[in-house]
């Protein structure tokens, strides 16, 4: 027993030491809590900001052209927006963006103005709204490709980044009349956008009505919350002289950390290639879809994986033939696909990650990669961003990887670096 007692003594001392350490931790925790409770919070809550906002961005880009050497470019973007209620039932919504791009000297700068929104809104009852003017209508639950976002076609005047979020921020609205009626857990929207011009106008300050209103278009959408909180959105879209396209958007929660989404549209239409080259192509039933999920970890990392399908874009055989064919037609097709914000080929995968406070408060990391599943070219993009109260500083990198005529390998630049400074002001 003496032996047992002798062996137990160091163990007992160890327990005592552990208890002391644990007690120390408890006391340290209590001390931390006590220190936290001496903090008083903001001396006075900041006055609630109004609705007007101003945003300025300056960017310096260093690119590596495929031809060799290097090229630099600079950009200044200015954006203002407001949402003014000037009578109890009336509002005016406005948003405009001006991009100034130059390389070397300011003298050769190019200006592009994008009138994002300018419309009147009338709400005669809580459940009824009418809007008239240039409205930025955006549909869809996908991240990288939105087949139900029917008003995306032709809406980009200036492409400053291939980040899908930037593409959404920088687009034109469409001139339309829109009516929306709502009820508990449901809404019905109908809109008509008339034809106002023949085609796009590249004049720097043009409202460019032809980019978005070159044909009459209409849309009806219906949302109804069903059992279990499932709220799909159904859409029907049409253009003057074209067949109607049906669409659906649906999301669901998988546990507490994952959202799954599905976005799809289908209808009779010519192929993208026939549309691009104004060829008399036969219309056929074609479907477009994007589906995936977003997982959010507790450490503020969110990851999205999305599969994208565009039935109007060429598959492997069509794409190979297009690449091997007339270079002019190939170029026209690519330009058209970009302007319409369609996939260049039939299938791709899009992976997106965002990490807030990456090892350092206010340091955010964003990255995506788009992989063309038809020709296996890819576009990786990443951004590291630090933000202060009104200013952000960011550095971006992107790389076009692939053979000379592949989806991403055909870009004139191979790799670009960009330094960006943003300024935000709320008025």
């Amino acid at each position, binding site marked *: 027993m003496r032996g047992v007692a002798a062996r137990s003594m160091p163990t007992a001392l160890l327990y005592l030491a552990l208890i002391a350490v644990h007690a120390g931790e408890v006391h340290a925790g209590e001390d*931390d809590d006590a220190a936290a409770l001496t903090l008083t919070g903001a001396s006075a809550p900041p006055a609630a900001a109004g609705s007007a906002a101003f945003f300025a961005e300056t960017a310096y880009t260093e690119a590596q052209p495929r031809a060799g050497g290097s090229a630099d470019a600079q950009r200044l973007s200015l954006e203002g927006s407001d949402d003014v209620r000037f009578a109890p039932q009336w509002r005016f919504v406005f948003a405009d963006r001006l991009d100034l791009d130059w390389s070397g000297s300011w003298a050769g700068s190019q200006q592009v103005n994008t009138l994002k929104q300018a419309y009147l809104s009338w709400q005669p009852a809580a459940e009824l709204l009418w809007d008239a003017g240039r409205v930025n209508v955006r549909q869809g639950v996908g991240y990288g490709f939105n087949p139900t976002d029917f008003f995306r076609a032709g809406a980009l005047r200036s492409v400053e980044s291939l980040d899908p979020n930037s593409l959404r921020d920088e687009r034109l609205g469409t001139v339309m009349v829109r009516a929306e009626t709502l009820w508990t857990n449901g809404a019905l929207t109908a809109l008509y956008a008339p034809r106002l011009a023949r085609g796009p106008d590249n004049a720097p300050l043009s409202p460019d009505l032809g980019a978005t209103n070159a044909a009459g278009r209409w849309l009806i959408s219906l949302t109804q919350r069903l059992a279990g909180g499932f709220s799909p959105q159904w859409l029907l879209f049409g253009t003057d002289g074209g067949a109607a396209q049906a669409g659906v958007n649906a999301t669901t929660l998988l546990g507490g950390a994952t959202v799954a989404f599905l976005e799809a549209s289908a209808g009779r239409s010519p192929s993208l290639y026939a549309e691009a080259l104004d060829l008399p192509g036969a219309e056929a039933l074609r479907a477009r879809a994007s589906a995936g999920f977003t997982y959010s970890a507790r450490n503020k990392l969110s990851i999205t994986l999305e599969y994208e399908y565009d039935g109007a874009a060429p598959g492997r055989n069509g794409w190979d033939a297009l690449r091997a064919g007339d270079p002019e037609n190939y170029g026209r097709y690519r330009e058209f696909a970009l302007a319409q914000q369609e996939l260049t080929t039939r299938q791709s995968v899009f992976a997106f990650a965002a990490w807030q406070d990456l090892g350092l408060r206010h340091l955010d990391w964003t990255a995506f990669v788009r992989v063309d599943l038809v020709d296996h070219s890819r576009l990786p993009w990443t951004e590291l961003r630090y933000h202060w109260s009104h200013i952000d500083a960011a550095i971006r990198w992107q790389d076009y990887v692939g053979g000379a005529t592949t989806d991403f390998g055909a870009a004139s630049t191979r790799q670009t670096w960009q330094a960006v400074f943003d300024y935000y002001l709320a008025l």
Partner: protein
Amino acid sequence: MFERRMVSAATGRPLLPLLPLLPLLPLLICCTVCASVCADTEDAGGARDAQQILAESDAIRNPNHSFGLTNTLTEYHNGHQTDTSTLQIYAKADTASGQYRNLIRFAAPARDQNKLMLKNGNDLWFYDPASQASVRISPQQRLLGQAANGDVVTVNLAHDYRAQLAGEEDVEDGDRVQHHCHKLNLTAAADDVTYARIEIWIDSGNQRPAKAKFYAESGQLLKTAYYRRYQRELNVERPTETVIIDGLDRQWVTIMRYTDYAWRDVPDSWLQRDYLPHFKP
């Protein structure tokens, strides 16, 4: 032989240090059985009481009609202020489920101005006016720095959690005033809530929440909250500040201050994704 047998199956470590307790084993077993029987007996009645206590505490944190308030979040790290943001919150109880639906407008900082977050049951949507994009997010996805989305929305804990009375304790609230409290253990009744488990201390005299600890499914402490600065708002004495201390880094503190309480009725039809582009406070 004896030593080789006395090994913990779970850890493989010798159990010899427990040998001196062997004579007390019958007594220990007896006490454990008694405690278990007593706990079971209390459980049936205690669980109901605990749920009622929690509901009464919810009623102190949350007005019983549709309301609005301003929530100013101030973040500190190592005692230095690092961030501040302001949210305008509109909350309305769902008559069917009893849970609150929330519409939240980001008023500051400038970068986030006019962004919106909607919570209607499992539906959590984030709307950015710059892109007109509405994105569905999960309860775990964070938009507000340290504070989880579930921290800023109005939540009836009694609706989302099963409460069990875990005893009576004297604890300090956020004003460092000591209260004699019921300690309740809350376990999630659904898998889409922000926290898997909560410990909350509620004043046994007036049902005011004094302190709470929030845990992940793994058992890890995520944050500690202290309630303080009780003031009369919308006819009831309510906590107008919550101090949140991060569970991993206790030097990371967020103070949520609630001001501008007002009765505000938001139509039911506005609490859906389709209305977000039209919302104007």
